[in-house]
């Protein structure tokens, strides 16, 4: 999957044309990323909006990513999701610029529910991973839940690839013999 070139990513915070191209290239992927973690369509809409709002704010600081715009956006999405599970972040969202759920109609909810249903098993895996230490969980989550390569996961987390490999190994060891990876990969890309 390829996204806009890096200069365009830096421009998305201030250039509506660049942003529109970026958004259209990634909105479905971001929505699925959220739906793999959240079962409420209203919340999926809110968080999808939050991810792009965060990207707009962060775009000027984009200095390239080994995995390109996609892994950069995944890193942002992870932070948004992590913040969601903190009470303070949920309260702050009440003051967000865009309440995604207000943009939903019945058809949208139905489409989101389809995605949410498709990712039921993946969400169960995601919940299973919560028991892992944060560093290890983050790598395994991006690889197993989202289908990133280890290199892409390292880029999204802004860590060295060798570090990501070590953490991934530890995470898998901790979870064995839970049969997670094969089922997940198939689910993610179905």
């Amino acid at each position: 999957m390829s996204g806009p070139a890096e200069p365009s990513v830096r421009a998305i915070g201030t250039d509506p044309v660049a942003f529109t191209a970026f958004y259209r290239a990634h909105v479905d992927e971001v929505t699925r990323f959220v739906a793999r973690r959240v079962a409420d369509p209203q919340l999926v809409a809110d968080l999808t909006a939050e991810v792009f709002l965060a990207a707009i704010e962060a775009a000027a600081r984009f200095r390239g990513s080994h995995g390109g715009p996609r892994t950069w956006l995944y890193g942002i999405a992870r932070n948004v999701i992590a913040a969601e599970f903190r009470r303070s972040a949920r309260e702050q969202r009440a003051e967000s610029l865009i309440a995604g759920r207000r943009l939903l109609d019945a058809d949208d909810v139905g489409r989101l529910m389809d995605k949410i249903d498709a990712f039921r098993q993946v969400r169960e895996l995601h919940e299973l991973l919560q028991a892992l230490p944060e560093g290890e969980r983050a790598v395994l989550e991006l690889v197993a839940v989202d289908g990133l390569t280890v290199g892409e996961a390292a880029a999204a987390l802004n860590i060295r690839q060798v570090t990501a490999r070590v953490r991934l190994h530890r995470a898998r060891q901790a979870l064995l013999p839970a049969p997670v990876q094969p089922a997940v990969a198939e689910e993610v890309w179905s």
Partner: protein
Amino acid sequence: MNTSEMWPPAGRFEDRLEAELVKVVKEHAARSRRRRWRAVAATRRPALRVGVLTAATAVAAVAGFAFGGISLSHRQAAPPPTGLAAGAGPVHIRTAAFSVDTRADGTIRVTWDKRQYIRDSRDPASLQQALRAAGLPVLIKVGVFCTGPGDSGSLDAAGVGPGVGRVMTGTDGPDGTVVFTFTPSAMPAGEELFIGYLSPAQVAITQGRPGSVERLVPTGVPLTCTSQLPLSHPGPSNG
């Protein structure tokens, strides 16, 4: 039909979200432009961020456009208010980038476009002339700082001496404009406003904090002037 059925409008969620986000991008772009301007302006006139603005800012800003076809008019009007310099009358200067107007209450209102200010070169002499014509006794220098006899030379962190705040104030206006208000009647008798605008080399030392020095100095007596920065701090951390 309830509210959720009336809103959102037709189209997919993704389309409506796109439209909302594009609005945010446009607002973000406008904020970024303002921040960039402030960053650049801070290297020239950092005191804009405090309540009392430095007159040198006005100098550089207005003077920068002074070559651009100023129309200066003296109108027959009410006698100048108390404290107005002898011979001063209402002044109304209009250019595409700035305006200088004396007002009925005796104050002088100066507005300008920041973007024009940044692009144009500094021309203190023209602004000094315009402000004097408007009734404000002012002495403007670049890279040179003057004090009167017995003046301790004390300045605050923004490079502003005692009493200047009564003479001029300023605020950021909409769309990158700045509005200064000079009050000639607040000028103590026998004094004038000295504005020492830092040279580019001096600005490099202070990193724009401050970018100018303002103080009240006596008129009719020799001033002591020096090219040495009259500031105790070596860099931007002090103000």
